[in-house]
């Protein structure tokens, strides 16, 4: 039976004792001290001088290593088990990519080095640009965005620049977003100054074309959409969707969060999308780091290249160079060239799979997910709203279970933690009641998939026989159910170990 490690590990500050240290930084040489003369601290203006020592824990190296290693054991991860998290594509992260990234020729290059000293990485980025453009069916990529949401924001900025260049930005203030969209889509659009117009889903779980045609018009800046959508359903009317947005003068944005379903099978560019982002930390298997780093390269069609951020990587036939000659560029969206460490891993991933392999990734992900879906529907008590045909993910509803037993989707998710699985995404998309969004990436074995199916079956059974067991779950994790209400309550909110009394 699964039991997560539990160490009762104190806070690192609680391990602190005066005089201990965990690292001795290198000291200046004698000559450096001598030449600098007298007291180097005299060089610091009094007004800026810290009074005393900085307040940090005093711990030895073994204690620090043991502390964080113990904490790491109290943490679930892809290397430990399956994450059936819909829309998150938590697939296995190949070790060769890690090995490749631990290279001083990568780690110890500075972003402002002379181009001639960084020809290797520039060549790699140039080639990656070509690969990703080919994979998405776009003309050119910017590798600068460091996350999916950063890619979306860049996409929205490009839309602004595009409409501005046509003198239409003043009245094109609306971004259309389906009601099933990820929260980042409306948030990115609003951040870029657009008003969000929500278009509803139809009874098949797809964008309601009539409703879309009603809202698309002279005020439309664009549409942001994923395909397959967050229900895992392929928007088969995508060409008509594209047509109505383009006819209205808007641009079509592809959110790459669900790209794993169609890798090598369909290209956003061929579906009529003008701007695309990919989540390399999803589809291209770079590790998610507990929340980051990621990378969200953005691809555009030919005539939008002139708005891409500076610099792009160019090649003059002899050497690679940073191309700043993009007259209508939106500028920069991050200080340097993007999350290079992540880009290198993704490049290695593409090489490892090649054209057939990438296609097999999508096909196997869809196969795995449909297998789980078929088995759960056959044996479980969950319902599948909308049509049956799903790609890399599906959204179940635990509504019936909830009505019959009082057990919620959240409780089922928490109970799954007890069995050494991660919970599916719960309560998203918001258009499904008691939603449980499940994705079974291609890197999961049949045995893992069967365990996942068994978890749904068992949870459904327990809801009837022992609902309290679910409502009080989890029982086998490092800690039991957490009081998240208390955690965010103004009176008990604790954001740091020396918790100050907050003032307005």
């Amino acid at each position, binding site marked *: 039976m699964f039991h997560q490690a539990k160490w009762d590990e104190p806070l690192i500050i609680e391990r602190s004792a005066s005089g201990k240290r965990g690292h001795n930084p290198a000291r200046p040489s004698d000559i450096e001290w001598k030449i600098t003369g007298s007291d180097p601290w005299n060089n610091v203006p009094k007004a800026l001088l810290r009074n005393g020592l900085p307040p940090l824990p005093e711990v030895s190296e073994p204690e620090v*290593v043991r502390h964080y290693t113990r904490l790491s054991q109290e943490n679930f991860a892809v290397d430990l088990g399956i994450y059936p998290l819909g829309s998150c594509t938590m697939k296995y992260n190949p070790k060769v990519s890690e090995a490749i990234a631990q290279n001083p020729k990568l780690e110890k290059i500075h972003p402002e080095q002379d181009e001639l000293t960084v020809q290797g990485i520039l060549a790699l980025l140039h080639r990656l640009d070509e690969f990703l453009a080919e994979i998405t069916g776009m003309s050119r990529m910017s590798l600068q965005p460091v996350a999916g949401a950063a890619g979306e924001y860049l996409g929205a900025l490009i839309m602004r620049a595009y409409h501005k260049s046509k003198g239409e930005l003043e009245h094109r203030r609306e971004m259309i977003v389906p009601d099933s969209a990820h929260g980042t889509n409306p948030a990115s659009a609003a951040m870029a100054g657009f008003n969000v117009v929500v278009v509803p889903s139809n009874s098949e779980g797809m964008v309601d074309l009539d409703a879309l045609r009603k809202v698309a018009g002279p005020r439309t800046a664009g549409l942001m959409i994923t395909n397959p959508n967050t229900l895992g359903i392929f928007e*088969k009317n995508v060409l008509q969707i594209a047509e109505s947005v383009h006819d209205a003068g808007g641009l079509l944005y592809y959110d790459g969060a669900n790209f794993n379903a169609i890798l090598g099978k369909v290209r956003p560019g061929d579906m009529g999308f003008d701007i695309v982002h990919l989540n390399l930390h999803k589809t291209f298997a770079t590790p998610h780091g507990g929340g980051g780093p990621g990378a969200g390269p953005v691809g555009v069609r030919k005539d939008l290249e002139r708005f891409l951020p500076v610099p792009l990587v160019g090649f003059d036939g002899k050497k690679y160079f940073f191309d700043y000659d993009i007259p209508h560029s939106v500028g920069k969206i991050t200080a340097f060239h993007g999350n290079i460490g992540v880009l290198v891993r993704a490049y290695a991933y593409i090489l490892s799979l090649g054209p057939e392999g990438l296609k097999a990734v999508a096909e196997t992900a869809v196969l795995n997910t449909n297998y789980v879906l078929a088995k759960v529907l056959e044996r479980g008590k969950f319902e599948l709203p909308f049509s049956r045909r799903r790609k890399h993910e599906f959204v179940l509803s635990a509504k019936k279970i909830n009505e019959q037993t009082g057990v919620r989707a959240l409780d089922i998710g928490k109970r799954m933690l007890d069995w050494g699985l*991660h919970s599916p995404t719960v309560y998203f998309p918001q258009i499904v009641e008691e939603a449980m969004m499940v994705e079974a990436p291609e890197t999961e074995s049949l045995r893992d998939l069967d365990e996942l199916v068994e978890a749904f079956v068992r949870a459904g059974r327990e809801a009837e026989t022992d609902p309290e067991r679910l409502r009080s779950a989890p029982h086998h994790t490092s800690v039991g159910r957490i009081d998240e209400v208390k955690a965010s309550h103004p009176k008990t909110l604790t954001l740091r170990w020396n918790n100050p009394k907050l003032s307005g």
Partner: protein
Amino acid sequence: MATFDHPFLPNSGAPIRKMMLEAIGAASIDELYSDIPTEVRTNRPLKVDWLPSEQEVKSHVERMLAENKSAADMPVFLGAGIYNHYLPAAVKAILARTEFQTSYTPYQAEISQGLLQSLFEFQSMIADLTQMDAVNSSLYDGSTALGEAARMACRATGRKKILVPQSLHPAKFSVLKNYAEPAGIGLETFTYDKETGGLNSGDLQSKVDRDTAAVYCEVPSFFGILDPEVVNVPSICHLKGALSIVGFDPVSLGGLKPPGEYGSDIVIAEGQSISTEMNFGGPALGIIGCRGENLIRQLPGRLIGMTTTLDGKERAFSMVLQTREQHIRREKATSNICTNEALFAIGAAAYLSLLGPQGLRKLFESILVKTNYAIKTLSEIPGVLAPRFIGPHYQEFVVFFKGARGALARLNKSLLSHGVHGGKSLVKDFPELGESALFCVTEVHSTEAIDKLRLLTEKLLGS
């Protein structure tokens, strides 16, 4: 159906697939894609390269990267936001724990306590170092942290003007502009003093008005200057109802006053130097913190809180105040940020725990000494003005080279051919400084490396 068997795909092999398809009730994989209109399908193999063995993949990328010359091959005197510090082996070992590295955002708190506690410790240490009430669990990098801070200040004050130093890194300014412009936020710059390089407080005071949401200052500045005037900026701001945003260098807080102590309302930083290698500029670590409940409600990104289990018996950690965030608040969220740089926040927590009070103070002192050594050494070269600005410097300094236009570019090229990478040229971005470059020295620059820079510069300028 592709019969492509691959080490990353456990369900390789025709029999497994056949069995799975039977369970689904589909005749083939193609059937699972049959709803996709034929006209959009990709009916040819993608034009991407493939290397069939892991060994080939690894050596292929290694051969490409071998074309780079890194700071391990030559002294590199570049800083300007990304710094080459020594990263303790223990930090690397902790970051290599795949329980951290391959985990997801800790939405399921009970199974993610290790990550949550580590991030809480990061927040606590940075809050203590800066004297802020709250620090979030990371943003992308220092430049987007500035953009978020500017938007946050405008939301909190209901004003639309942000003042930034003329000496801001141009890349940072460009990012800030992209965060500001769509929100209708106006950016104005205040000049720097031509002698000291510090902020021109007369110019600043004349520009802070009742429309000003915030003033941004950096310690040390882009020019590496420790400008004592910065401590007066918060009160100048507060007099007009504006906020003070201060950008800090994490290592420098080993010796410098926490911005909270002189009244700063929001702090930001680039945390790459205390968490990860340079990696050509990314991934980095965006740090943001603030004071007061009003500003905390405006913070972007994830916040971790300490609480208890439902039965009240055990300490536990979870994400808090999520109603600020995009997955709940959608277009009304404080930011669109979702994926962040959590792994390096753990790296920073480990780094700061290892160095401790003594280590961070000593590291600050070492860099202070080395900076002054480098300045004094370079200042002995005829035709070189080092530092260009009078006054105290830390880690970076501007050097002016007498000579015709192009002298600096020629020097840097020659230095490179002798195995030294010079400073960042300021010629294009700060033409008023003439043939000037920004040099950076940290604890990794040996006396020999600095001396080599000096000898080569002297020789090359003389020839």
